[in-house]
């Protein structure tokens, strides 16, 4: 049976709550023109009433008190077991900043030492480079007549004018 969309919507609404007067009026208009819908609605309404009139399941008067007592009991147990673990955590929180600072200082020291070493290596490298540019020391045999050669160097320079005249 294909049902009117409005009827379907009102029917689904009636499952959850009572229809408003306006909704009831619109439903009545629909049912007035369709006997099949009317029969279907009678069953729907009957079931709605049956479900609405189901008695609430009995709940003990001290239900809330029992729940609270149990919740407080479990909370107290949880607090007792949590404390040793929390002490351990507190210990870490107390020492962790100090360890972190020490680590930073140590790292700074290491970096500084490495920097100094690097600079020294550079200086040594520069020194070596400078030394490598100095010409090699000549063979000692070359220096045998060194004194004579030096003595030659102390003579006055040649008289070039005289040389020209003589030529």
């Amino acid at each position, binding site marked *: 049976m294909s049902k009117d969309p409005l009827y379907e919507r009102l029917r*689904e609404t009636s*499952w*959850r*709550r009572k229809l408003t007067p306006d909704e009831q009026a619109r439903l009545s208009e629909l049912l007035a023109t369709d006997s099949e819908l009317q029969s279907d*609605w*009678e*069953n*729907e*309404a*009957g*079931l709605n*009433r*049956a*479900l*609405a*009139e*189901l*008695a*609430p*399941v*009995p*709940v*003990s*008067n*001290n*239900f*809330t*008190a*029992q*729940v*609270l*007592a*149990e*919740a*407080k009991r*479990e*909370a107290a147990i949880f607090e007792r077991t949590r404390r040793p673990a929390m002490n351990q955590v507190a210990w870490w929180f107390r020492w962790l900043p100090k360890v972190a600072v020490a680590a930073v200082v140590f790292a700074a020291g290491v970096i500084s030492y490495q920097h100094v070493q690097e600079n020294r290596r550079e200086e040594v490298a520069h020194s070596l480079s400078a030394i490598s540019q100095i010409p090699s020391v000549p063979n000692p045999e070359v220096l045998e007549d060194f004194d004579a050669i030096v003595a030659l160097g102390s003579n006055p320079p040649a008289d070039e004018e005289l040389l020209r005249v003589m030529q």
Partner: protein
Amino acid sequence: MSTDLDPDAALMLRVKQGDWGAFAELVDKYKQPVMNLVYRMLRDSTEAEDLAQVVFLQVYKSADRYHVSAKFSTWVFTIARNLCLNEIRRRSRHPADSLEGSQSEHDDQPERQYEDRKAFAAPDALLHGELEQKVEEALAELPENQRTAIVLCRGEELSYEDIAEILGCSVSATKSLIHRGRETLKQRLKPYLRTGSWSKSK
């Protein structure tokens, strides 16, 4: 503080801060609807109350994980349904065990006290009770998801979107579950359903 905050969400915020009074208020407000759902899922009144208490203990333990944006009723019914499904699965694996085994651990707790509702029942009420039993029996025979959908749908508190979230399916699937469940109930209860009167017909 936002004035649009759901009252239940406001209470849960206080519970998160350790307010036992707020927790008691929530328990008082939801114990009946939770009990209605749990009983109709488990079909055992004693075990239903034990499990209903566990639902609220779980609510308390999970308070840290509760988000204000979530509707409290949806959240608590989801917890209730999940615990019921766990219990149903546990029963299917160990049919001899029951929750009463754990009850001995709490023998120091006060016994449950109920109002005596049957003491003053008029004859019509007794007849009504008999018909009500028919409805309960018919509900009990439905598949769990259809039964749960119909039970949740009874209260005006939950929208179809809320019910879908609790069941873990779409809104259209939820309506389909309710429709199929209701069709079965109407077939079983047809002799008892009349427009305008609630009387047995043969």
